């Protein structure tokens, strides 16, 4: 094969042979694509591995071809993928349909965090360059799932040679943490989950050669990231909060602000055993009317928005902010006086050691506390490390909780978990029979296809807003700050940023 010489020096962009330093706050665990399911892990996996389908730039509404092109059958149960066959792994071997099948089965087999993406899906090789994904239930979201970097295709031969398999006995993670075995734009030069990941460009990459030959992705705390990028010590900072971005004003840097994929919400427990107050509809109404959404959005800074419902603005079926909750202090006070609330202290639990796009949940909690106080609701803040608090949250033990939801794939069906009796619904003590009206709308949304989907999801959210125990508060901005030498950074809700597209 003639690919050895494929890295022609005549590439576009001004970054020939240069290296790029990207600062991020790590939540990195592994460089094994099929096991990672963290923000930083996706950035790494996206750079090292290619997926069967992908998204183009920041548009996540239409899946595009990746290593393969796809066709879906009418009832959304069988997906047929045809490999394009022009990609090569970094060791020069071809990416085959076997590699693809092996990788998808590996995601399922290792039973890791991303395994659920392919729950109920059977992968089968059907020809020299075709494979099918079969689901028992209709699975219209599958094309939106496949671009997830966790479904990156690994080199079966290499992985198996290093202890890998598509079962629980897989032992290739250690190897994949030292060397990459993918066909992505970069190869792994070094990997330290706590400190930094260094990438070098993959000479056998089939696509456009990335602008930077070497990328250093460093783990740096927020405030330091800001100083570094201002000083030119790094070229890209991924985790600046809106205030830090605002302070950059005069500095010679560029800011790219977009609404992020995260939705921060309050939950009020519907289980009377947990709290008779929060399960009181009047009290819920009071809280919904007492929150000053504009002020919270303002506090979260430029680029952040109020989501109309649980589905973030960037996805199909998102509600307009105007149709969401709004502040009405009088209504709040009135509802409160009709409720069983007697002025007792209500605890608000939240994790205090994590930030969402650089924004600490603590400031949101403090703001909510102050606003509810204006309506006469006394809130006691109860922060805890996320490890401790997750337990209470996932067990549905919190009275009022402040959390965020990041989508697993860019499709509104991801948000059906907020329905009664579903994953997040249960966390608010909302049983399956908690609100039949909402349940009906959720089922309708799930079943809807084509253009009807958007409307169905909007209806679902409206009823959720009216009677549900969730109060969507904020969709914080995703800020990427770059030094002037960088001309373009493309963000994406699934993999945050594609290092190979930075120019």
């Amino acid at each position, binding site marked *: 094969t003639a690919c050895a010489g494929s890295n022609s020096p005549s590439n576009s962009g001004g970054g020939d042979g240069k290296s790029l330093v990207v600062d991020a706050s790590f939540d990195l665990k*592994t460089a094994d694509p099929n096991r990672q*399911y963290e923000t930083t892990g996706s950035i790494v996996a996206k750079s090292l591995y290619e997926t069967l389908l992908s998204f183009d730039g920041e548009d996540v509404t239409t899946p595009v071809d990746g290593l393969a092109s796809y066709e879906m059958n009418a009832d959304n149960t069988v997906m047929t993928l045809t490999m394009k066959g022009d990609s090569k792994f970094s060791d020069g071997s071809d990416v085959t349909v076997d590699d693809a099948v092996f990788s998808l089965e590996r995601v399922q087999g290792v*039973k890791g965090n*991303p395994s*659920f993406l392919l729950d109920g899906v059977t992968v089968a090789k059907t020809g020299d360059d075709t494979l099918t994904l079969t689901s028992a239930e209709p699975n219209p979201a599958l094309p939106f799932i496949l671009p997830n970097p966790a479904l990156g295709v690994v080199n079966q031969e290499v992985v198996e040679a290093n202890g890998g398999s598509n079962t629980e006995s897989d032992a290739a993670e250690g190897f994949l943490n030292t060397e990459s075995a993918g066909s992505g734009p970069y190869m792994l030069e070094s990997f330290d989950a706590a400190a930094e990941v260094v990438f070098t460009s993959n000479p056998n990459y089939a696509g456009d050669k990335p602008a930077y030959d070497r990328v250093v992705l*460093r783990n*740096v705390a927020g*405030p330091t990231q800001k100083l570094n990028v201002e000083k030119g010590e*790094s070229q890209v900072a991924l985790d600046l909060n809106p205030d830090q971005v605002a302070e950059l004003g005069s500095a010679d840097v560029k800011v790219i602000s977009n609404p992020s994929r995260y939705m921060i919400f309050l939950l009020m427990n519907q289980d009377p055993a947990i709290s008779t107050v929060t399960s009181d509809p009047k009290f819920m109404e009071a809280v919904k009317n007492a929150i000053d959404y504009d002020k919270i959005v303002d506090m979260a800074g430029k680029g952040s928005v109020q989501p109309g419902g649980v589905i973030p603005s960037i996805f199909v079926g998102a509600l307009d902010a105007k149709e969401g909750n709004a502040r009405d202090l009088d209504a709040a006070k009135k509802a409160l006086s009709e409720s069983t609330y007697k002025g007792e202290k209500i605890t608000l639990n939240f994790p205090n050691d994590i930030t969402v796009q650089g924004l600490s949940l603590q400031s949101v909690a403090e703001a909510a506390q102050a606003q509810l106080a204006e309506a006469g609701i006394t809130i006691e803040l109860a922060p805890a490390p996320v490890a401790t608090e*997750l337990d209470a949250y996932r067990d549905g033990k919190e009275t009022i909780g402040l959390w965020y939801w990041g989508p697993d794939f860019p499709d509104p069906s991801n948000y059906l978990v907020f329905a009664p009796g579903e994953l997040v619904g249960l966390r608010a003590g909302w049983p399956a029979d908690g609100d039949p009206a909402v349940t009906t709308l959720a089922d309708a949304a799930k079943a809807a296809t084509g253009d009807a989907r958007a409307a169905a999801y909007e209806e679902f959210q409206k009823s959720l807003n009216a009677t549900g125990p969730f109060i969507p508060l904020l969709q914080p901005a995703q800020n990427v700050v770059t030094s002037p030498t960088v001309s373009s950074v493309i963000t994406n809700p699934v993999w945050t940023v594609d290092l190979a597209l930075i120019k």
Partner: protein
Amino acid sequence: MPSSSNDTVAVAVTTGNAPRRGIPPLVRYLAIRLGLTALLMLGVTIVTFTLTNLVPADPVQAALGEQAAANPEIVAKFRAENGLDKPLPVQYITYLGNVLQGDLGTSTQTRQPVAEELAKAFPATIELALSAIVFSALIGIGLGLWAAMKRRKFTDQVIRVVSLIGLSWPTFWLALVVYYVFFFLLGWFPGSGRLSPAAMPPPQVTGLYTVDSLLAGQWSTFGDAVYHLILPASVLALYTIGLLTRFARSAVMEVLDMDYVKAARAKGLPKRKVVLGYVLRGALVPIITVLGLAFGSLLSGTVLVEKVYSWHGLGEYSFSAATKLDLPAIMGVGLVVGVVYIGLNFLVDVLYGVIDPRVRVS
């Protein structure tokens, strides 16, 4: 009667002494120490284990994603993999057995061997803490000596105030201020991390970049590593400098009052010789004790500095382990810090022996 024989009487009093036989005392001493150390480490692991298990939270939740944690199959597999499905005593015994074989377990977060992760994090912290302690020792002991020589004079007062002020800064804040001023505003020092992004870490021998780069003969890497060390090490050192200055001063002052210092001066020795050979030597034992203690506290103090300087060491590792309930990692850190602490005490004891012959004998 020859007069000289009179003097020997006092020594001869120990005739009632039983003859010493068997194991030489030094070996015995070492053996006992080692045994105690092992017991202490056992205690450390038990306490860590119990404490961590007292935390009302489930490592499953901390390690698994939203969807994965909702899948009983995955949760079961996770529990089985990490031995969490066994009763606590069994878990502990298994852990202990593994530790004895040099296996510190696998991180529940990264699924990497804790020993390997520690091998990365530990040298970073050691490098930082060692440079800080060397720095503090040189400056602190120097200032303390100087202050003691000028006792109650103006210089002494100035040194006193300065060292007390050095003791009073909240490290975490100072770390950021120093970073802001010396990196951001003035640009005198490089930014975060242990090396410039362009530099390659030297081949790992000790894990200390300064030492490794020297071993590999990479002078520019060595320079880079030192350059990156200066700011965080100075911030860390500030507190210890203050502490050591105050301490060295009083230790030296006490020695200055000793007859042997008077005797040395009466011998007409040059001042430098009196100060370094007699005074400092005499004050060294207590100073070394404090130096050992200071190093111990430096190790745990690094967490606050590491955060700001993106120095991915033990402090950061232990912080994330504790907040994410990564039990094997927490235990690993406990063991390592315990070993360092005990090793340090041991080292200090050995140094006593080197410095003070009276210790050597018993």
